[in-house]
């Protein structure tokens, strides 16, 4: 059945243990990481200081 975690996590080591598209936890972590990256990008562009135009006197 799709998404069973029984005994499959021992196959993965390192990064793949937490981020893979086979186990429920792995898929969840991928989703959270993607959403977190998008949120970080949005916040970065929103909070980036805007350059003030130089006015000539």
């Amino acid at each position, binding site marked *: 059945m*799709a*998404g069973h975690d029984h005994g499959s996590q021992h196959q993965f080591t390192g990064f793949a243990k937490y981020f893979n*598209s*086979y186990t429920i*936890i792995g898929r969840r972590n991928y*989703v959270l990481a*993607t959403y977190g990256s998008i949120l970080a990008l949005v916040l970065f562009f929103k909070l980036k200081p805007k350059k003030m135009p130089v006015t000539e006197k």
Partner: protein
Amino acid sequence: MMVNSFSQFESPVFLTIPLILLALILPWAFYPSRLHDDSSNRTLTLQNWFIGRFAKQLLASSTPKVHLWATLLVSLMLYIISLNLLGMLPYTFTPTTQLSMNMGLAVPLWLATVLVGFRNQPTLSLAHLLPEGTPTLLVPLLIIIETISLLIRPFALGVRLTANLTAGHLLIQLIATASLAFMWIMPAIATLTSILLLLLTLLEIAVAMIQAYVFVLLLSLYLQENS
């Protein structure tokens, strides 16, 4: 007087009273409740048989948690099918041709299925947003696509019902107008058009029932995904 083809879909108002309220309450009158002494008659028996049969068929392959929604789903199905079929009568107004009404049904119910999922099994609900076995390079793209597909579901539910019913009623009106127009000029063509109108009406009756079933079926599927 018919100003344009879409006049039939305008929400009727009489002396500033919106008659859509009457149209929405009307199906209630067609479903008898229990008799005062708990006895039964043929109408009640038939009604209960149909409701039981439908509920079993809809929820046969679902978990007991989904069965808690049986009352809501079955009553929603009866309501929509009643509104759709009553709208097939001449000169009646069909509330389910109004996008606002269908979105009013679809959005809260879809949102409820999503929130139930996130509340009871947040890990599984999040994991569903990435199909199993996705290649690593495609993971971010597929997550975004699955999220968009999730968010578009209520719009699809509402617009599907609206579009099917609106298109059907519009076609019936156009073909009936054509049939009437041809009657004195070309009776043979008018006869063929009338036969087409009859077949179309039968199709629309089927569509009215099928669309109600599809609405409720999809909601139950969304619920099963999240339970």
